[in-house]
């Protein structure tokens, strides 16, 4: 295992590398390839700058999320995009790092209002596949100086460079949280209710739905954040806006429910889990006409329906096909084919290794984009040693 402690050591280690590297932060997100020499950034750690008055933080890529969260908590601030912790869903252990958040562009429920990881990331330092130390962006909120490689690095899964340092803009942590719930709505009505809420001026910062299953009724959750009086006011207003969907309950609090939504805790026991980005109004047809008649599985909706989690446990896979890997592959192909038709993308997030090696984990890109992606990888990593195979 290679475990550099500084940016210079990262650069030296990349230059010295004789073969593929498996780059990881805390190893909790299942991003790094199984083969290749383990290249851990856990020791490139620490907050190098935190200016609460400028809403800015800069930290080493290996800095634990717990350290970042604690520092921000003490000043009543937060990362706006509410990054998911993958440990419960994936059954992994270890310490999630800020570099891993960037590598996988990890966001949570607040993404629909405050943007994703890539929207709050304002600067990166990284080492490319040649072993050269590079920077882009910086520590200021508005920056259009040169190409935006900051966003390119976010969600590039370590295939374009090894992150050494990342900078973020922050938000004040809301004083209060409130949740409006609607139960028993059919899927299409639940999505329509979330759309109506998100189209209102009441600044909904979370919109999630658990569809009905068996005896369990569906539940729609809408989150409001801010000063307490304002949250209560907007809760009451939103109730009126949504009157056609039934009587909504409003209560202050509910932070734990949002952690569960963020971390997809309900799918911890699933064998296979997919993550779909989709146009919300396309979801009812996709699930009710396309998936459920053929593939027994559960779905969870976030981002007002724009993010769909699909999960299958062993029993459900068994109903699709005798061999669970073959069953997973069938559903996987169905999802990616459907996304290709309607626009959107499906990623296989959790699965037995046998399935992950059999199918394209990420949604395959159209030929011209795939050619550009290859071109970029060749420019950033001419030897093809940075997490090879992860993104094609």
């Amino acid at each position, binding site marked *: 295992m290679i475990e550099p402690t500084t940016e210079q050591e990262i650069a030296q280690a990349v230059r010295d590398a004789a073969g593929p590297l498996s780059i990881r932060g805390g190893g909790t997100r299942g991003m790094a390839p199984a083969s290749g020499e383990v290249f851990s950034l856990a020791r490139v750690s620490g907050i190098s700058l935190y200016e609460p008055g400028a809403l800015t933080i800069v930290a080493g890529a290996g800095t634990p999320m717990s350290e970042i969260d604690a520092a921000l908590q003490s000043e009543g601030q937060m990362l706006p995009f509410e990054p998911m912790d993958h440990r419960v869903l994936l059954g992994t252990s270890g310490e999630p790092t800020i570099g891993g958040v960037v590598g996988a562009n990890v966001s949570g429920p607040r993404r629909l209002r405050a943007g994703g990881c890539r929207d709050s990331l304002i600067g990166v330092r990284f080492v*490319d596949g040649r072993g050269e130390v*590079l920077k882009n962006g910086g520590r200021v909120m508005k920056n259009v100086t040169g190409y935006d490689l900051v966003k390119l690095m976010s*969600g590039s899964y370590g295939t374009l460079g090894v992150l050494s340092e990342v900078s973020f803009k922050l938000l004040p942590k809301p004083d209060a949280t409130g949740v409006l719930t609607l139960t028993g709505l059919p899927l299409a009505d639940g999505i329509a209710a979330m759309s109506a809420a998100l189209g209102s001026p009441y600044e909904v910062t979370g919109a999630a739905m658990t569809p009905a299953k068996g005896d369990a009724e569906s539940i729609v959750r809408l989150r409001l954040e801010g000063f307490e009086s304002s949250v209560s006011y907007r809760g009451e207003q939103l109730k009126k806006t949504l009157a056609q969907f039934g009587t909504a309950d409003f209560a202050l609090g509910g932070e734990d429910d949002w952690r569960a939504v963020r971390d997809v805790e309900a799918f911890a026991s699933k064998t296979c889990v997919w993550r779909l980005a989709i*146009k919300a*109004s396309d979801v009812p047809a996709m699930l009710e006409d396309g998936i459920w008649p053929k593939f027994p599985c559960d779905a969870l909706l976030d981002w007002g329906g724009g993010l769909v989690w699909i999960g299958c446990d062993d029993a459900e896979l068994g109903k699709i096909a005798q061999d669970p890997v073959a069953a997973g592959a069938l559903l996987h192909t169905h999802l990616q084919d459907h996304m290709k038709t309607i626009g959107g993308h499906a990623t296989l997030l959790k699965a037995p290794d046998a399935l992950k090696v059999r199918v394209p984990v990420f949604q395959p890109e159209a030929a011209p984009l795939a050619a550009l992606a290859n071109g970029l990888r060749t420019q950033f990593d001419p030897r093809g040693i940075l997490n090879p195979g992860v993104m094609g």
Partner: protein
Amino acid sequence: MEMPTPNPRILALKSRLVQRLREVLPHDAVIDDEMQTRVYECDALTAYKCPPLCAVLPSSTEEVSAVLKICHQEGVPVVPRGSGTSLAGGALPTADSVILGVARLNDVIETDYDNRFIKVQTGRTNLSVTGAVESDGFFYAPDPSSQLACAIAGNIAMNSGGAHCLKYGVTTNNLLGVTMVTMDGTVIEIGGAHMDSAGYDWLGLICGSEGQLGVVTEATLRILPKPEGARPVLIGYKSAEIAGACVSDIIKAGVLPVAIEYMDRKVIEVVESYAKAGYPDCEALLIVEVEGSPAEIDEQLGLIKQIAAKHDPVELREAKDAEEAGRIWLGRKSAFGAMGQINDYMCLDGTIPVSSLPYVLRRIGELSEEFGLEVGNVFHAGDGNMHPLILFDANKPGDLETSEEMGAEILKLCVEVGGCLTGEHGVGIEKRDLMNVQFAPGDLEIQMRVKDVFDPAWLLNPAKVFPLESSASRRMQADAAA
């Protein structure tokens, strides 16, 4: 500002090129008459002018593709142009280039309130995007000062911002999908109505690439429900330091205003004489605006006023209604026009960490003395995006050059304190040769390698963004191969 010498091979090609372009475009969409090409000789950086070889005004993605294919085959540089409002020379032609204007691409393709997006052709102006949805209670958030005229294509190329980006972000945070044509004519679809496009963050890369990676013909943009209301408070202070401390305290207190605007004495005096907004006589003026219901606005403004009062303001004036709000904004909104009435000016837009505000303002004052040119400061204080206006006399020999030298010093100062050369206007030609101040050679090389992937022949807007000597070998090699 130096531009590359026109290539005689390309100049000699003109008649054949025009003929080929006319084969794929309507007759009036190819402009080659020397009187008419002058319309495209500059953008809003009017100090630099050069008519292009010809200009084309395609009306569809297919026509854009056909034009680019021809120019690619002939090895002719193409300069994409939105509405020509760039302050950085982003759309400045060279004599051997074809201007590709998107002005005829101005349709709304789809409006979807359930999923909160609008899909438009990119020649459409920024304000008319909001215009298409505002009667239904929605708006498009990025609001550059030029929003009446500027095109979405240019907004995407420069990743334009605006006064309200503290809360809503800039163009890149509001862009969901694009149709883009690369230099060889390939049409690429990226993203769409969903959030987070697949694979690498192509949208993030294209947004702000100054028209060097492709021509964006259609865009899917996020639209937002209009807030219930908005109201500003005006706060005057005795010094820049105190105003800076107040901004920092407001942010730390957990209020997130939609805008925090700053004006210094010079700007206050000029807008007072021009717009008569009734601004107080002081060194530093802040306009802080918040949104929400009347009660929510009262609560937030109450907190802001408390913080402001601790810093002993010269004046603290809260807008009670729309008319008073309008009066508070009047001066700020007319600031650039007012400054233009009294002087020629050069507007910079370096960004700095908010904590460096007092130091940077003091140093700008010293530079003003040193170079003998007056400076007015008006800017977005919440995000540190400065807008120093250097006043000069275009008719006085040497004054433009002196203002450029002074501008360069101010931008170096922004970088020195941890900031950047440009926060929302873009590099264009204006800041091209200062890129070495902010970036090491390797940082620029990796960006140029990105362009190599999209446009290996370096034909799209080639003499921009990168210092001429840094891009020279690529531009020349490309021509040798053509």
